[in-house]
């Protein structure tokens, strides 16, 4: 795998095509992150495109001493996703989960309802708790990186995640800790 810093240097020196390597490397992470904050797939893809386009335009301002490229990119992705929600471009209503839709089980409706409720409760969390939950649970990022993306201390990340999990567990009346 080509060194990321070398790729960035090449792009800044005019090798535009090298940017494709970064897009291919991070497209899944960015799409997943935007997709877990915003659920509309088309809007999510537009936002993911915007994230990479913005990253390309601002690449000269990226400083690897302040953090990794992925952290910088995820910060752009987080901000773009939240801005899109703020601009009311995004429908926040719950969507039917397809996870169990195909399974033929007698309690299928109950299971679907539970998954829909998980989606609804996730989106009803305060934004800062929602993004921390998404980054920690879905993206599996370390607390340190989440703290950099959110611009807060690691302790704050832990607190937000704990509160988010507690709220989800309470709302869904779970008898175990998430």
């Amino acid at each position: 795998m080509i060194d990321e810093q070398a790729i960035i240097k090449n792009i800044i020196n005019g090798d535009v095509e090298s940017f494709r390597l970064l897009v291919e490397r991070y497209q899944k992470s960015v799409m997943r992150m935007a997709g877990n904050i915003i659920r509309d797939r088309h809007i999510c893809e537009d936002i993911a495109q915007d994230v990479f386009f913005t990253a390309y335009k601002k690449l000269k301002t990226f400083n690897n001493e302040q953090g990794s490229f992925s952290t910088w990119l995820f910060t752009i992705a987080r901000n773009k996703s939240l801005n899109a929600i703020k601009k009311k471009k995004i429908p926040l209503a719950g969507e039917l989960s397809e996870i169990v839709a195909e399974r033929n089980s007698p309690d299928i409706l109950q299971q679907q309802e539970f998954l829909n409720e998980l989606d609804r409760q996730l989106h009803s969390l305060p934004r800062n708790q929602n993004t921390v939950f998404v980054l920690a649970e879905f993206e599996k990022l370390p607390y340190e990186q989440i703290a950099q993306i959110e611009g807060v201390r690691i302790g704050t990340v832990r607190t937000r995640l704990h509160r988010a999990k507690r709220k989800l567990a309470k709302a869904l009346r779970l008898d175990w800790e998430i």
Partner: protein
Amino acid sequence: MDKKKLYELWIEKKHQVEINKSFPDKVMGRVYEYERRPRWFDIPRLIEIISVHTIIKNGLVVIGALVGFIRVIYVITMVLSKGVLNG
């Protein structure tokens, strides 16, 4: 299926992602289009240049302040000269 297993399934599903194969091409299309734009007279690019370079930003603020100050002086002079003429 119990709630715990459903929760784990939900997390697993959220971790999965489907990517359109043409996604990198779409991004690169925008990048090349951006690169083809003329460098100057391109307002978004100019704004970017201004926002990235502190010296340019500060210079513009100073010029703006100077223009404003000169305009205020000019207005005061006009008012005073009219007042003198009328009085």
